[in-house]
């Protein structure tokens, strides 16, 4: 929990300033609520969600202590609503590989996150295979291969410029043939507004299903924690075209707070599964709604 708490430190400072003005027994005034709203907006929660959260408080909370409790509760409720805990992680000894596709806009951190997930599942005793389906960006394949060497995980890759759906197919086939427990597929970054590239994702999705029934098990949108309100658009479009099943919030070790994830969870009912907190392969933690909100609100977890 340490890293996550630290990385949320700055957000916390901000919210703390607002919350500390809330003396436990004192009545909450409009100015205090406004500074709460400001703190939420500054954390990229978005003006609409922030206004909704604060509006609820105004009616219900006469004192500072209750305000704090109610705000915390409503934020946790939003984050828990999409059934965060329901989906299990893959376990060793599977008959057919468990397949995850990592998607997102350019530069969100997909390749690094793929490597981190491989390291995590490897620690659980799973045998892993990675598919380098980013055949577009220069040296993306090499980048994943370096991670593969470091982690001693095999990587299925084609020539740069090849058909990514074919890489997905081959990776799934190789995973099945070798009895891998997990196949993690890194895809090329794409802006959600590019229809042809989004259609390509749908094709990759189908390719996985052709090899392994029901694959992919997960399609995760890797979202840069510095992303602003456009994150909601990204999630909507990736949901429509690639059927994303959850989010991974990358780069949460900066001063960005990733508040848009709260809006995404709220509007699209998508769970946040992991948070990335650094450049090392161990810097990935399962998402914990309570801790996330506690971190945001500056309370000891």
């Amino acid at each position, binding site marked *: 929990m340490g890293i996550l708490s630290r990385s949320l430190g700055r957000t916390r400072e901000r919210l703390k300033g607002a919350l500390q003005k809330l003396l436990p027994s004192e009545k909450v005034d409009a100015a205090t609520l406004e500074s709460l709203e400001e703190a939420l907006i500054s954390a990229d929660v978005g003006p609409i969600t922030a206004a909704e959260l604060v509006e609820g408080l105004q009616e219900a909370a006469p004192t500072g202590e209750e305000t704090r409790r109610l705000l915390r509760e409503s934020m946790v409720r939003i984050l828990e609503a999409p059934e965060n805990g329901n989906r299990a992680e893959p376990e060793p000894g599977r008959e057919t590989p468990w397949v995850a596709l990592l998607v997102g806009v350019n530069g969100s951190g997909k390749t690094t996150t793929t490597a981190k997930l491989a390291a995590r599942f490897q620690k659980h005793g799973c045998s892993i295979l990675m598919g380098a389906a980013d055949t577009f960006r220069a*040296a*993306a394949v090499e*980048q994943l291969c370096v991670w593969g060497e*470091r982690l001693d995980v095999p990587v299925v890759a084609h020539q740069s410029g090849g058909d990514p759906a074919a890489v997905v197919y081959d990776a799934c086939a190789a995973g099945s043939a070798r009895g891998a427990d997990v196949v993690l597929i890194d895809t090329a970054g794409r802006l959600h*507004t590019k229809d042809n590239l989004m259609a390509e994702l749908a094709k990759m999705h189908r390719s996985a299903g052709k090899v392994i029934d029901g694959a992919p098990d997960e399609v995760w949108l890797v979202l*840069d924690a*510095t992303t602003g309100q456009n994150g909601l658009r990204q999630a909507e479009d990736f949901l429509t075209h690639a059927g994303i099943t959850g989010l991974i919030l990358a780069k949460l070790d900066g001063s*960005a707070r990733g*508040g848009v994830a709260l809006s995404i969870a709220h509007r699209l009912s998508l769970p946040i599964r992991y948070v990335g907190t650094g450049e090392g392969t161990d810097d990935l933690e399962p998402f914990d709604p309570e801790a996330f909100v506690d971190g945001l609100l500056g309370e000891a977890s």
Partner: protein
Amino acid sequence: MFEQITERLQRTLRALRGTVHVDEKALEPALKDLRMALLEADVNYGVVKEFLASVREKALGEQVMASLTPGQQVIRVVNEEMTALLGGAQVPLSLVGPSPHVVLLVGLQGAGKTTTAAKLGHFLRRKGHSPMLASVDVYRPAAREQLLQVAKSANLAAFEGAAETPQEIADAAQAAARKDGHDVLLLDTAGRLHVDEEMMAEAAALSAAFSPCVTLYVADSLAGQDAVNSVKAFADRVGLDGIILSKLDGDSRGGVALSIVSVTGLPVLFVGVGEKFGDLETYHPDRIASRILGMGDVLSLIERAQENVDEEVAAQLEESLRKATFSLEDFRQQLKQVRKMGPISKLMEMIPNMGGNVDMKALAPGEDDLRRFGAIIDSMTPDERQNPSLINGSRRRRIATGSGTTVQDVNQLLKQFAMARKLMKQFGRRGGMPLDMMGPSGL
């Protein structure tokens, strides 16, 4: 969600009418909507606050110009303020001092530095320079390989030598650039978080050692509220000369441009608009301004309408609209006016909400249609123009022959005219958008 907000803002602005001065009571709801739109566009909270204060001050009590509605007047103030904040004249990339000029690219992870390096190299070569690219990213796996590959496919020189530290690589690259006669050395650095003390110190040391001619910060246009904190940290620690805004080909509003520019005062030199090497454009503050508000280029439309429309003809048109005696004669006049204003598609593009409005779309004929419509109306008798219901089958055939078109074309025109007239009546009654937004001529 953003569309809903800008729609509401436009409705609020349209509601500002019938007053000689813009007063506080009328302005307040508009400012509230404007605040929402700016925050939703990822403009920094503090910047929004200041911006609204200055809009309020400028818009209040301003005499409403005869040719603009109060709503348009407020849009004008908003646009002027925003364009002023976003920076006035374009700032060119200036390379002075001893050759090779070092251009340092810095930014957060995933902002787009490497792609931007290749685009910038491509741009500089087209300007007659001979750039060399070098990556000093010794951290991310295959980062240097990536730069070599993009340089190769952009047909640009790249420094291939390896060394342990960024500074050693940069040293060797500088020597190589000098030896091979390159006048610009583009240094692509590792992405780093501004809170990473060690990495920031490394960038600062690199900058101190090479005193780059220009240090550019690559800012991700998808970024949110935190963008100002990172750019400030880079400006303080490394020293920045300008901004390149990346990934503007998405649908982000780019409010981050307003935040960054107003907080740092740094100029935006380029915007990245695609994945190809040529997809680096010079920065136009006015375009970003209308993008942030999502209001199309309402103001320039107002301006164009005013410049080009013959006031007298427009007044007549408006008169006939109000009396609902809008005839084909008026329609022809109007088509002429519209054609004067420029390509119709361009005009439609500039009108917010036009895309979704089926009726308006049907009313937006292409250039060829306009020419054909003109010919068809010219082939009618004055009576027919005043009273289109006269036009029966044999008249249609005559008009078609006379104008070198087909009966279908004539039918199409009559149908569109009927639709236009219906719509005009509606708008004439409630004084809705076309009249408001497009000046007196309407469409």
